[in-house]
């Protein structure tokens, strides 16, 4: 599998339900970030979690990171129709002391129906 693979590929839920998606990666990371992309639009940064952090919250978003399993999860609580989008994880890897790179996964397409 590739660095930063999301699971599931697609998720359909009702408004008010929680949505959980996972991201697995292969190499050690500096941080992992989640982005949202509405159809045909640019990517919007949601949250960044560093390799020494295990959990982070931002509003209705909760991100966990398990470096031993090389995986992260994004939970959206009490979903709304406006949460309909594709969600991508991006792994950031330090290549040198001053430089790193990002790699995006294929994304999870979330559809929230009213």
């Amino acid at each position, binding site marked *: 599998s590739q660095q930063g693979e999301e699971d599931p590929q697609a998720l359909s839920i009702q408004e008010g339900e929680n949505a959980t998606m996972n991201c697995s990666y292969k190499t050690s990371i500096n941080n992992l*970030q989640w982005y949202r992309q509405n159809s045909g639009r640019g990517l919007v940064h949601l949250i960044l979690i560093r390799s020494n952090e295990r959990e982070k919250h931002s509003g209705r978003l909760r991100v966990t990171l398990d470096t031993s399993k090389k995986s992260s999860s994004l939970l959206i609580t009490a979903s709304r129709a406006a949460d309909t989008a594709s969600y991508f994880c991006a792994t950031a890897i*330090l290549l040198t002391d*001053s430089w790193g790179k990002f*790699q*995006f996964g294929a994304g999870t397409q979330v559809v929230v129906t009213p």
Partner: protein
Amino acid sequence: EPEVTQTPSHQVTQMGQEVILRCVPISNHLYFYWYRQILGQKVEFLVSFYNNEISEKSEIFDDQFSVERPDGSNFTLKIRSTKLEDSAMYFCASSEGTSGTETQYFGPGTRLLVL
């Protein structure tokens, strides 16, 4: 709130033509990137740029591609001789910080269609 801007929003070109995609990163950012996303597929890294030079490039970024920061605000991606398979959404991003692994802020993208 500062944002990354890109022009044009859409571009249609004939195969073999040169295109230049333009981006204005956030003004105090030091790291700049280009990504592309073929319809329905993942976001693919093309190139990163720091201190007026390419820091890293992917296999996609071959000799047909080049980047430039012609002045203090613009960051451009040039495709010299476009191919049908270059049709995609191209995103510019920028970040501050010291490592290039911090949050990247994306522009709205340029949709390129090569006929």
